[in-house]
Structures are given as C-alpha cells and as structure tokens.
C-alpha cells in the first residue's frame, strides 16, 4: 500500500495531462463535428466532396501516424512555422481526428430523421434554422448519444498515444515508473485510473440518455 502511495503522485501528474488532452479534444471536436455534419448535409457539392476527402484521409490512417506527422513531419517539411509544443500538436491532431468520426456519427443521426418531419415543419411555417434547432438537433443528439459515448471512451484510451511523442501523460509516467523501480504495480494503478475515468463517462452518458428518453 505504501508503494502505491509513493507512485500515485507521479501517475496523477500524468493523469492531469491525459485529462487535458481528452477535455480539449472533446470540447472542440463535438461542435466542429456537428457543424461540419450540417454542412455536409446541405446541397453544396464542393464542400461535401472536400469533407469526404477529409474523412477518407483521417479515418483511413492510424492516429499515431498522424501524431508523428504533425509533431515531427510538419516542421521538418515546412519549417519552423509549424514547430509547436508537443502537447499543442497532439491536441490539434486529436481534434482533427475525432472531428472526422463525429461528423459521420452526427450525419448518420440527422439522416435518420424521417422526411415527413421536415414537411410538417414547413407546414407549421418554421424557418430552416427553427427546424434545425427544434426538430433536427434534439433528435440527432438523442439518437447519437450511444455512439458519442462510445467515441468518448475510445478517446480516453487513445490519449495514451501521446506518450509516443515525449509527452508525460498517464501512460508514459506508468511506463517510466515500472522501468525505474522494476515493479509492475504501476500497471494496476494506471488501469484503475483509466477505469475510473471511463466509468465516469459511462455514468454521465447513462444519466443523460435517461433524461432524453422522453422522445420515445
């Protein structure tokens, strides 16, 4: 138990970094995903094509590769302008990556809304923005909530990838602790921390799903 106390500090320091990457990614990529999903559903062909290309690249390559590309590839290829602190590079990469997934999730949710609802909205003489805010958005959020919860859990675990670009997150500090002390207890403590974080997410989403249950 005392050994756990000794290493806990180091691991919790890493957890702060893990949570920073997680929170920034989540807060930016969900609104961005929603916005771009709306754009993709409009009749603008060019924007649709561009977004298709974007999702194709991002979903078709490993996040780790994208991370290395942003942190090391960009400054080597295009000079100092692209040189940024690793943590910023990591957050930007994660936002770009997760936005691509959220676009597809939201788009699917929006497309699942029946046509006659749009017709009803126009009969009620709701404007386009009113239709979106009062008819489309609430149902989209309700429908996509389980998928978003899934992505959010994946995101927590994906943050471990940042340890590969010299960022001291929970994963990196755990590995360091094991290598330094030649003891494996840190693995267990890290697993517990990740489990607590993912459980908190599951709990929050469950609560929210219940709140939104009145649509059914």
């Amino acid at each position: 138990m005392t050994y756990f106390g000794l290493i806990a500090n180091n691991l919790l320091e890493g957890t702060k970094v893990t949570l920073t990457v997680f929170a920034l990614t989540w807060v930016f990529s969900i609104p961005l995903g929603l916005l771009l999903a709306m754009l993709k559903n409009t009749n603008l062909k060019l924007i649709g094509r561009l977004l298709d290309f974007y999702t194709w690249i991002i979903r078709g390559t490993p996040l780790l590769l994208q991370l290395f590309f942003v942190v090391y590839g960009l400054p080597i290829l295009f000079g100092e302008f692209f040189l940024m602190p690793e943590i910023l590079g990591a957050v930007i990469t994660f936002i770009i990556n997760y936005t691509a997934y959220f676009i597809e999730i939201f788009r699917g949710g929006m497309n699942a809304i029946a046509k006659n609802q749009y017709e009803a909205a126009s009969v009620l003489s709701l404007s386009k923005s009113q239709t979106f805010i009062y008819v489309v958005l609430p149902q989209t959020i309700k429908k996509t909530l389980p998928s978003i919860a899934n992505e959010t859990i994946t995101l927590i675990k994906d943050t471990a990838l940042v340890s590969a670009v010299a960022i001291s997150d929970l994963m990196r500090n755990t590995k360091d602790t094991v290598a330094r002390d030649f003891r494996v207890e840190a693995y267990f403590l890290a697993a517990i921390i990740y489990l607590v974080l993912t459980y908190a997410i599951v709990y929050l989403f469950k609560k929210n799903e219940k709140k939104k249950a009145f649509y059914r």
Partner: protein
Amino acid sequence: MRKLAVLVLMVLATVSLVGCQSSKTDLEYILDKETFVVGFTDFPPMGYTENGKATGFDIELAEAVMEKLGVKLETRYIDWDAKVLELKSKKIDAVWNGLTITEERKLEMTFSNPYFDNNLIIIAKTTSNINTIADLEGKNIGVENQSSADIATAKNQVIMNGVEAVKKYNTSAEAMLALNAGQVDAVIVDEIYARYKVLKETEGYSIGTEIIGSEQYGVGFRLGDEKLSARIDEIIDELYEDGTITELSIKYFGVDLFVRD
C-alpha cells in the same frame, strides 16, 4: 468438487515443473532448449533491424558466440523500458545491445565482463554552436527514455538546473528526429551511435567538445545466471584471441574498439 481436484492437480503439476527447472543450472537451461534469445532494440550500429532482420555489431558477435556454444541464436525486438521484465519472464535470455553497465542495473542483472568503451556526448545542429554543458543553458534537450544518457543527465545537476526541459523518447533515433524537427536543441546520446550512425549518414550535425560521462558496455543476463555469464565470457575471450572480433569491429567502426581485461 471435481473442479477443485483438477485445480489442485494443476497447482501440483506447476509446482513440480518449477521444481524441475530450478534443479538445472542456468547454463544447462540454455543448452537444453538449444536456443539463446537476445533482446535488442533500435540502437545502430550495435543492434538494429534491417530489411526485417536483426543485425549489427552485437548481433553478429552474439551469432559467433552462439555458434561456438552450439545453440541457435534467436533475436527479439524488445521495449527497452521492459528489458528486465523480459529477462525475468524468460522471454529473452540476455540483453545484448550496447547495454551500459551501471551499479543500479547490477542489482537487476548479472553482467558479462565489459567489452566496449563508450562516452556520452552532446550532438546538435552545427549551426546552433552547442559544444559544452554550459551551452545547454535554456535549451531543450532530448534523450532516449531510461537510457544511460537519460540516467546520467538526470544526475548531472549543472545540466538539470540550466536546461529548459529534458524530453524523453522511445529510441535514440526518435530523439534525433525531434532534433531535426526542432523540438529539441540538442540530444545527449552514446558516442558510438552518434559517430557511426548520425555523422556517417547525415550532414549538418556535430558532436560537442565536452563529454557528459564515460561508460562501458556489457551483456546483461538474468540476475544470478553466473555460470552462463562466465561461459559466454570465455567464448568472447577465445573469439577475441583468434581475431574474429577485431575483424568485426573494423567492419563496423573502422577501428578496434573492443576491450578485454
């Protein structure tokens, strides 16, 4: 009840198996299984992967030694941070990859006699004019995580107080990539790696004039594998006397860097 009986049997079987193993010496264990697994990571020119195959000075040396010992050499790419765990779990039989002999590591591994001299040096872009420890003031430096460069840097108060940050990478090659990208201003690394990998194959880097520390390489065996360690030292001595090793050193480094007491 039957489940319990099966469980008891399994436990007994395991205990007796473990018992059998412990009655064999470490050398007999290797000779019996007829393979010797060397753990290595990406650390040219000592050990690295080329075209999917492990090669390098240490790997070729290990091959020559195992041929004499009469067992097959297997190589296993390991996570350098997990080298002691790899040894303990018997996934590998030795870490043989430019492994620096340190007092801390002696508590966790049994070492062969030292076979190589190596210094820790500063490498930076030539244009940055970083040559001495004093030049590192306010700079970002990179090291391979848990390497001897990492350990020596952490102990050096002058460096630690002066630098902006010490960033840690999975391999020396990744630290050099970060240097190229500008994420760090200098990298502290083994001279052998710097001289025979970086300076040979790329331009624009130079080695500083001040040495951070000096160290010796040895083969790391499981703690307590004294018989195995002694036998392999014997074979290395023989190979050095008949000139095999000198030839190998010249092939990789241009000079004979091998040391024998």
